[in-house]
């Protein structure tokens, strides 16, 4: 495993990763021979139909699932070690804010668990609230905020303890398209400002192309990578870049990749 960590700039390194779930109906191959290198500062999207293992792969990085074969390193460590060293913040599809805590209280929660001092907690909460454009909303309770604002609060919570990696599992999947566009734009700005490495699961082609520096196309049964596209788009991306020729070409290639993966399923 150690030799993989030697790849310069590699934050996440998967080599021949396999994951087999033992279910009541027999073994299910969730991931098969996944090879991927994610470099520092990359914005990587995982796209594919349901059952392609995109979420499972993200959960392997987070040490919420454990691979049954191959190797996976995060910051040069095993995923479990990386988790213990707070290598990543995780954002789920639902905001999952605790209804009995204020927004500030929710963002403070991981800081309390990790044992930051009271003064540092308050300082960090203010900082990340400003980062996601929620300054002044700390005292509100989750039910007083819209779905988009709740999801921003959950991103702030994942950013609060300075993890270098942000893992996002369909974070905007439950939001309407207008809110989604705005949050995508804001996420890009946030990424530019913080220089985090982001792993982003989605099933929206435009979202993947708009956000990513690297698009990983996956296909199901067994879950595997069919294509990895390094995006030629500039890092600065206004929303109307989505009408440009390059954008449409990449989107086309993603669609081709998805179709190819679908074809040999039959």
């Amino acid at each position, binding site marked *: 495993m150690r030799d993989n960590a030697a790849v310069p700039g590699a934050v996440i390194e998967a080599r021949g990763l396999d994951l087999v779930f033992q279910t009541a109906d027999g073994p299910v191959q969730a991931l098969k021979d996944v090879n991927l290198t994610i470099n520092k500062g990359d914005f990587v999207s995982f796209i594919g139909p349901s059952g392609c293992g995109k979420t499972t792969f993200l959960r392997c990085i*987070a*040490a*919420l699932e454990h691979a049954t074969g191959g190797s996976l390193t995060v910051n040069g460590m095993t995923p479990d070690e990386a*988790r*213990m060293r*707070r290598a*990543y*913040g*995780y954002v*789920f*599809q*639902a905001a*999952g804010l*605790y*209804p*009995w*805590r*204020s927004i500030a209280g929710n963002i403070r*929660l*991981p800081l*309390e*668990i*990790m044992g930051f001092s009271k003064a540092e907690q308050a300082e960090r909460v203010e900082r990340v609230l400003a980062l996601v454009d929620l300054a002044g909303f700390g005292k509100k*309770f989750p*039910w007083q905020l819209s779905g988009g604002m709740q999801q921003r609060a959950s991103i702030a919570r994942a950013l609060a*303890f300075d993890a270098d990696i942000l893992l996002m599992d369909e974070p905007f999947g439950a939001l309407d398209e207008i809110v989604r566009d705005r949050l995508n734009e804001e996420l890009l700005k946030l990424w530019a400002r913080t220089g985090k490495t982001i792993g982003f699961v989605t099933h929206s082609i435009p979202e993947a192309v708009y956000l990513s520096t690297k698009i990983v196309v996956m296909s199901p049964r067994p879950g595997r990578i069919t294509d990895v596209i390094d995006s030629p788009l500039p890092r600065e991306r206004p929303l109307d870049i989505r009408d440009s020729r390059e954008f449409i070409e990449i989107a086309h290639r993603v669609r081709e990749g998805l179709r190819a993966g679908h074809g040999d399923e039959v």
Partner: protein
Amino acid sequence: MRNLGPILVVLAAIVALWYLAAVWMNAAWVHDQAARDGRAVTLAELVPLTLTQERPVLPAPHQVAKGLYDGLFGQKVTSKRSLVYHAWVTLSATGLGFVIGSAAGMLLAVGIVFNRAMDLSVMPWAIASQTIPILAIAPMIIVVLNSTGVTGIVPKAIISAYLSFFPVVVGMVKGLRSPDAMQLDLMRTWNAGALTSFAKLRLPSSMPYLFASLKVGIAASLVGTIVGELPTGAVAGLGSRLLSGSYYGQTVQIWAALFAAGLLAAGLVALIGWAEWVTLKRMGLAR
């Protein structure tokens, strides 16, 4: 107070039905008396006679109200005839039983959620314990504890706890398990241990469930105490009032004690409801 109208209409209907039932059920005794004297009674004579008997089969509402009022306000509260005195005796055992029962219920729930062996073993026994008629087991508990020198309110409190722990176990287990997989995963991403997840996530999540079952539990506690008072030789408590009333055919006394118990139960449930409101409001869960 838009709801007041319908409530009063229903209440009036119940009282009217009750009067009709009282006339109908107490009429037999009036007819017997009249037959013995060789008289016939008209309906106009019958009605007042059925509503003023000393030991009616079914006392009329105003008789019960008078009995209740006399019991609550017509005596010194230290008197053996005072319902306040008897209610206090019952209340103290109920309180102790409820504290024991709900504490045991919460501890068992924590054990069930955290320990697989307890999960598999405790719940069936808890359910089995509630299928045994409390009337059958109450005298045995009293006798066994008496023989070991435990007397006073403790045996009654234990019977009361026996009834009240169950809803608390069921509600608390449900509540502690209410956080979904995503919230538990979130805790794992922060590398939080089981104890931290319990304190920060499971326990607060269980509060609404806990209060719902505490309301059921405290009412069950009161029933348990009253049942516990029935076979104790009945010296004090609402249960003893019920028992002595039935020995001597004092139906008014029985009904007055029943209503006193009902008022007490309503008060206790309201008290838990208030604690629930205060707690959930502080947690930001009450809207």
